[in-house]
Every structure is written in C-alpha cells, then in structure tokens.
C-alpha cells in the first residue's frame, strides 16, 4: 500500500541569538509521513536546510519519549500543540491535516529569554529548585529502608506532583507567565512526605521568593497551565502551595 504523505506550511520564529531581533520565516515541509513526530518532521526540514547551506532551526530535545521535559514550544498558540497530556516530541503529524499552516514560537516569558530560535533559557526553574526544592540527607550508615512509614494515598499524591518534568509549558501557556504550577508541584511533592518536613517552612518561603525574583507573573487562577501540562499536574498543587505559604506566614521558624 502506498504511504500517504502530507504537506504542511510552517511559520517558524527565527532568532540568531539572545540579543538579536527575530522574525517569522516560512518553510514548506513536503512528503511528511503522518506517523512522524513533530520533532522528526522538523529534523527533515532541517536536513533540507543544511543541504541548502542554511542555518537549521534550533530546538531542544533529548529523550524524545515524553519523559525528560527538554522539548517544547508553542504551536498555533498552544504549548506542546493541541493534543492534551503530551510533549511535542510525542505529538504526531497525524494530528494535523494536509495543507495546514502551523505557527511555531518559543516559550515567551521574561524569565525564559530566547537563546536561539525555539530554544529558551529555563535556568530560572533550576534556581527556584536550588532555593528550596530539596531535602537534607544525613551522612553515615544507611538507614533502614522502611523506617519512615508513608501511607499509600499520600505517596500516590506526592507521586502525582513529582511527575512534573519541568518543561515550562505551564509558564508558556499562562497569560501572566506565572510559574505557579511548576513551583506548586515541587512544593507539594515534598510537603506531602515526612522526608520533606524539616525544611517545609523555609522551602515555600524561599521558592516563592525566587519565583518572584526571576520575574514570573502572578497566578490569576485561570488554569490553562493544567490544560497544557504534559503530565496533567492538577491546579490543586497551586492551592496547596498557597496553604503552605499561609502556614509559613504564621510560623515562628
């Protein structure tokens, strides 16, 4: 059986460097296999560009199986494209139609400056984690594996929050460029577990402060972050972060 192929028209944000001004460039991808992932389609476009002696389109990716959080850009106004619960590396060309025009832009946020084309600097997330998203571990003899009991329901909830891969889609889709879903998930994950308790108060205080310092916006409870999250992290993580913050406001430590 002959393989059906498709043609799509791309409008891609091209920007040579952080200080350069960018613009949209048009490309046409022909003979696209509908079972290619979006990134594979871009790989083919890039090979073409390289053959022609042009600069390939720069984008981030690593695992290409939707678990590392490296890839991501905005497709037609939607972070990671229109399919829910997925990253662009797991988005397939079959979700588009032959002849579609596709607009591709990098994550837009003051805290995520563009490095090149579709690649943005997400180290602001790392600095939020460094501010408090850790637990202190004692050195010395190995503790007994099950010495701290954690209920199944609690460990499941903590795991749901821990599923965040830090891709930045929540920031990209938020009309306020807020990092509340990311920060909320990291705070919730550790606040649920006994291992996170010694730093509990300091953690929320410092991580929220860092989030502000990085220039992210303020959450206005719109919830688009939850809709674009490839790991479907719930908005209740943000509610939990608010309760943790309230607790820290009234805490002595």
């Amino acid at each position: 059986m002959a393989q059906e192929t498709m043609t799509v028209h791309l409008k891609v944000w091209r920007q040579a460097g952080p200080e350069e001004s960018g613009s949209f460039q048009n490309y046409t991808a022909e003979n696209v296999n509908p079972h290619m992932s979006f990134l594979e389609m871009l790989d083919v476009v890039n090979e073409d560009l390289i053959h022609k002696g042009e600069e390939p389109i720069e984008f981030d990716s690593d695992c290409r199986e939707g678990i590392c959080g490296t890839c991501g850009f905005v497709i037609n106004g939607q972070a990671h494209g229109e399919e829910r619960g997925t990253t662009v590396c797991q988005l397939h060309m079959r979700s588009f139609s032959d002849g579609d025009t596709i607009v591709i832009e990098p994550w837009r946020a003051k805290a995520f400056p563009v490095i090149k084309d579709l690649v943005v600097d997400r180290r602001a997330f790392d600095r939020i984690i460094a501010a408090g998203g850790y637990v202190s571990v004692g050195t010395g003899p190995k503790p007994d594996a099950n010495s701290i009991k954690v209920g199944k329901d609690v460990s499941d909830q903590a795991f749901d929050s821990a599923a965040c891969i830090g891709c930045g889609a929540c920031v990209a889709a938020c009309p306020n460029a807020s990092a509340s879903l990311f920060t909320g998930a990291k705070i919730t994950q550790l606040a649920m577990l006994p291992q996170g308790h010694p730093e509990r108060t300091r953690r929320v205080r410092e991580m929220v402060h860092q989030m502000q310092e990085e220039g992210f916006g303020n959450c206005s409870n719109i919830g688009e972050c939850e809709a674009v999250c490839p790991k479907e992290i719930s908005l209740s993580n943000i509610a939990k972060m608010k309760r943790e913050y309230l607790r820290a406001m009234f805490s002595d430590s």
Partner: protein
Amino acid sequence: MLPLKRALSSPIGRKFVMSISGIALVLFVIVHLLGNLTLYIPDGGESFNRYAAGFEALGPMLYVMELGLLAVILLHAFWGISTWLRNRRARPERYAKSIATKGGGSNLNIASRNMAITGSFLFFFLIIHVWHFRVRKETVGEKTTVNGQEATDLYALVVGSFENPAWVFFYTLSMVVLAFHLRHGFWSALQSLGAMKPRWSKQIYAFGLIFAILLALGFLGMPIYLFLAAA
C-alpha cells in the same frame, strides 16, 4: 520568619490581599442588593425610603462605614492594577498567535482574561455611581417624611434618574461588566486563598456563574423595572 511586607508583596501574598478585599466587596454588594430589592415593592417608595433613612439614622457611624468601604475599594483596585502591570511585564514579548485554550478544566475565557479591564470599568462606574446618588442625595435630594420624621426622598432621585434611558443603559451595562468580573472573581478569590479541593472546584466555578448572573440580574432589573414602570 517571613516579614509581613515581604509576604504581602509576594506573588501569593498579593493575591491574598486581592482575594480578601474582593470577598469583602462581594459581601458588600450582596447586602447592597438585598437592601435595594425594596425598590421593587410598588408602594411609591415608602419601603425604600425607610431603608435609606435607616442609614441616615446611623449618623457619624455612616461615615466610618463609608470610609472603610472606600479603603477596601482603593486597596483592591490599586493592588489589582499593580499586579496586572507586573503580569504584563512578565511577558514583554507577546505571542504572534495568541494563546488558545487546550480545554479540559481551563478557565481561560473572556471573563478571566479581562479582570483588569472589567475591574477598571467598575472603578469608573463606582465614581459615577457615588456622585449620581450619594453626592446628589446631599445636593439636589428633595425632602419627604419617613415615620413622621424628615428624610431625603432618595426614591424620587432614583426614579427620576431612570426615566432617562441613557442612565438605564449605563447601569445595565455596568452590571453586565460586574457579572463578568465576578464570574471569574468568585472562584478566583477562593482559589487564591488555597481554599480549594479538586473535588469542589468544578462546583464552585459553576456556582460562581450562577451567583454572578443572579447578582447582575437583581441589580440591572431595577433601572429597567423603574424605567418601564414610569413609561
């Protein structure tokens, strides 16, 4: 320790302020509506004037209450606008293709996206509204008797205004704007406080819509009712 100043200017603390001041305004608006429902009683304004005279009887306490309300409105409005400005600065470079919702539980809609615009309109409305009835009550209000005592005929002032279709239109429009502000605001205030469980949020969001519609209908019915009654 978390210093109060730092807490309240943090992304979370500033929304606590918005939320608590917003809830205070919602409570005020509910009481305001319940009192004004007396306008619907077809008794030539007796009940409404009696209700209004009750406020005059408060004497200086009325000024204290009014100043308190003014403070809450100013706090809410300035905090809201300052938060909105920060949010705009968080995305200096806009998307060429504006954000389209991916659906699910997202509340990305005209109500949620335009809180600062509907809020600013409400601020403008409040200035006009306070001048229109509160100030003019003192300057051009006629006198009448309520329970044998002299009182301002606020009813005549209200009815007289709403014979003018321009006022009817302005008030109706303003109440539609209020409905949009509260459609998102009601739920948002609770979520900002963290007073939300995933189990409830759907119902609270739905309740916010019903609440916003009922409140707006209750208010915008008044000018329309009085206009039709006079015609």
